């Protein structure tokens, strides 16, 4: 099976405290640690496991800039054989629909049986996968937590629904699936692995290469625009305990006993 996985480089929220910049119009990006968007990494692992069973190759693609090559390399070190970078100044300011349009053009350049995305990007909105499927007229399923390859171009999949319940369906190939975290255990990638794939060329396509014009992508085409970032104020906020560790622990024990009752 030929599989394409869409991946994105994002600020890693488990490594960073996300803060506003001085002007208040963006997050402070100077010292941010970036990494692969977490569910995208699970998606690549899933693709590799499927390809290992069925044969075929795994390609990874990102819409971004040269800086984003590092996540392609990381996923290639996991075992993806092709890295594709879709980069063009004209892509800047694209909304979700714009990103999906760019990815659609890339899908049409190849021949894939299965396209995977992550459920949601850290700075995203769980939209690109579903949009891409609709543009391609492929069946779609979100929040996928298991994939089994069936005969005659079908998959059996489970989706995560409310309360930890799971919905089982059958889906025709080619299709687009958005992958949820926890579906597998992504393999470890070390510096050595990344160095080993450092010299493999990454195919790079611009807007014209993909047959895209500025009416379809970038700022001009965006129907949805982020105006600014701000820090929300919800509720009244916690009362912070300001004592030593021991004093704080003492107070917490008293609070728990009073509010919850110690049996």
């Amino acid at each position, binding site marked *: 099976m030929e599989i394409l996985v869409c991946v994105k480089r994002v600020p890693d929220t488990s490594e960073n405290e996300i803060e506003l910049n001085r002007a208040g119009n963006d997050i402070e990006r100077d010292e941010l640690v970036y990494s692969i968007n977490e569910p995208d990494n699970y998606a690549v692992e899933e693709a590799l496991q499927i390809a290992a069973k069925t044969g075929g190759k795994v390609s990874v693609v990102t819409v971004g800039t040269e800086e984003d090559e590092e996540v392609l390399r990381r996923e290639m070190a996991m075992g993806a054989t092709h890295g594709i970078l879709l980069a063009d100044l004209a892509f800047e300011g694209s909304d979700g629909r714009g990103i999906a349009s760019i990815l659609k053009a890339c899908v049409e350049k190849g021949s894939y049986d299965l396209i995977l995305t992550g459920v949601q990007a850290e700075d995203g909105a769980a939209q690109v996968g579903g949009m891409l499927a609709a543009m391609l007229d492929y069946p779609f399923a979100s929040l996928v937590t298991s994939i089994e390859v069936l005969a005659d171009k079908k998959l059996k999949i489970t989706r995560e629904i409310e*309360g930890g319940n799971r919905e089982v369906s059958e889906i025709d190939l080619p299709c687009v699936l958005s992958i949820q975290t926890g579906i597998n255990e992504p393999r470890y990638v070390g510096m050595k692995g990344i160095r080993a794939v450092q010299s493999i060329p990454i195919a790079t396509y611009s807007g014209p290469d993909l047959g895209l014009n500025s009416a379809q992508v970038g700022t001009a085409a965006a129907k*949805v625009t982020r105006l600014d970032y701000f820090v929300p104020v919800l509720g009244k906020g916690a009362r912070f305990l300001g004592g030593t560790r021991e004093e704080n622990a003492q107070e917490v024990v008293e609070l728990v006993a009073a509010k919850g009752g110690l049996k």
Partner: protein
Amino acid sequence: MPRIFAYIAHKNGVLDDSAAELAAAAKKIDRGTAVTAIILGAGPALDAACTEAERVYPELWKVSGESFSYPNAELIRQALMKIVPEGSITLIAHDHFGIDLAPGLSIKLNAAFVPDVTSMQPLQADSLQVVRQEFGGQVSAHVRCDVSSGAVITIRPGAFNTGEVPAAAGKVVDKSAEVGMLSAGRRYLETIAAETSDVDITKHAILVSVGRGIQEKDNVAIAEELAESLGAAVSCSRPVVDAKWLQKSRQVGSSGKTVKPKVYLACGISGAFQHLAGIKGNPFIIAINKNPKAPIFQVADVGIVDDVLEFLPELTSKVQELRAVAAK
């Protein structure tokens, strides 16, 4: 003024909480507008859901058909494409079903898409300004949406206060004939119920809940010790389950369990909305996090800025001290 529609989710004839919330959200877009509910299903369940929805919506479009007895987003999207007029605003709950249905629907309707909205300003000409969160709720963003060719908007569950929704006496319009027969490349087979285990976190008065801040599988023992001393149970956030440090049956949140403890100790949990969605009954929340700006502190009653790996053992020894005194 574009027409506004609300997609009504229901299960066995009982409306989802979002049914009223979408009506409240529509009122934010335009106070005076008459929102139309769209409801799909089959048999007596559909009739029961319609009867309930008539109390909230002045107009109701119903589509009935055996293929809608289970909500398959791939089929429902096609049905909506046939009946939603061009240029409309369609509201859908941002849950596992909305995430499945809505992005593709916006493409098919050639409408703008704004997901997971937590608040909205009144519509100004063709421009709608909304608020949504990014980076797990650490920051919010004002987002402007051009609705000149319509919009599909998903609404954060629980974000819109339904107190303001007036009662209605809706009239039902049957749209089934316009939809006709549909088929999809994805077919529903069955639902597998969530796993259960020896520890039922929904039954405990005190929960020691650990998040990614616990850092390693071995450190979960620190929380277990505290829980044992308190007579509490250990629950957790999703990344802890993804990493296989604890079983899925311990997960609190929209894709895990809904808990109603008296006291909830959030240890190294940032406070993403999918996690908070599983904490009900207004418990006393004590949050321990090394980041003073973590969103959990906005909803917690008491906050401690500290390392959980240091603080929890201290807490355990204080509980043991207290018990020793009580035993004398």
